[in-house]
C-alpha cells in the first residue's frame, strides 16, 4: 500500500504545465498631447486570459491564447517616460486589439498661460 502512495505522489508531481510558444505581438504606439496610446494585436485572446501590470517603471503585458496544437503566450513590455501617469492607465480589448492609454501627468499636460 505504501508503494501505491509513493507512485501516486510521483505521478502528481510530474504533471506537466502547458507549454507555450512565447511571441512578441504586433503593436503600434501613438503619442499625442494627452499622453500615449499603445495598440496591440491579440487575436484569439479572451479578456480573462490577459494580464496587464505596471512595475519597475514599465508596463508588462502577458496574454495566453490556448489552442490545441500550439498554445501561444503573447508578451510585451514597454518602459514609460517619467512624465506619464502610470496610476491612470486604461485599457480596452475589442476585435482582437488591445488599446492602452497612458495619460501625461497633470503637471506635464499642456496648459494655457494667462497673459497679465
Amino acid at each position, binding site marked *: 500500500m505504501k508503494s501505491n502512495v509513493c507512485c501516486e505522489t510521483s505521478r502528481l508531481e510530474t504533471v506537466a504545465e502547458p507549454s507555450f*510558444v*512565447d*511571441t*512578441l*505581438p*504586433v*503593436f*503600434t*504606439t*501613438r*503619442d*499625442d*498631447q494627452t*499622453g*500615449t*496610446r*499603445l*495598440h496591440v*494585436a*491579440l*487575436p*484569439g*485572446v*479572451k479578456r480573462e486570459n490577459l494580464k496587464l501590470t505596471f512595475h519597475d517603471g*514599465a*508596463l*508588462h503585458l502577458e496574454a495566453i491564447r490556448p*489552442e*490545441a*496544437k500550439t498554445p501561444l503566450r503573447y*508578451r*510585451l*513590455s*514597454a*518602459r*514609460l*517616460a517619467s*512624465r*506619464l501617469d502610470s496610476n491612470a492607465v486604461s485599457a480596452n480589448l475589442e*476585435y*482582437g*486589439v488591445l*488599446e492602452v492609454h*497612458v495619460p501625461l501627468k497633470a503637471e506635464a499636460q499642456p496648459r494655457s498661460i494667462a497673459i497679465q
Partner: protein
Amino acid sequence: MNRLISANSLLAPSFDRLLDHAFGAFVSSSDGRSRETVDQTDEAHVLRIDLPGLRKEDIQLDLNDRTLTVAGESTADRPLATRYRRAWSLGPEIDTTRISARLDLGVLEVTLPKLAPVAPAARTIEIQSA
C-alpha cells in the same frame, strides 16, 4: 542674430517617444502577416485566420467555382490597419453548400464540412454458372 529662445523647443510637441521600444524575451516575432491554421475533424476542415482589428463588415468571403476567397481591409485611420487577401481551391470532399463562417476575438473561423461518404448499398452477388 543669436536667438535666446528656440521657437521649436517651445511650440512643437515633444518628439521623443513616450514609450520605449519593447523589450523582453520572445522566441518568435510576428512579422505582421496573418496567421492561418487548418484543422481537420471527421466532419469538417476548419480554417482559422487572424484578422485583428477587422470587423464583420470589413471582410468579404466569396465562393466561386470551388475557389474560396477571403478579403479584408480596415480603414487607414484605424490602429494596426491591415489588408488581407487569400484564395483557396477547395477539394472535391468539401460540401460547398454548407460552408459557414464566424468572426470572434479578431479570428475568422471558416468551417468547410465534408461530404458524407456514400456507403455502397448492400447487395447479393449472383454466382454465374460456368
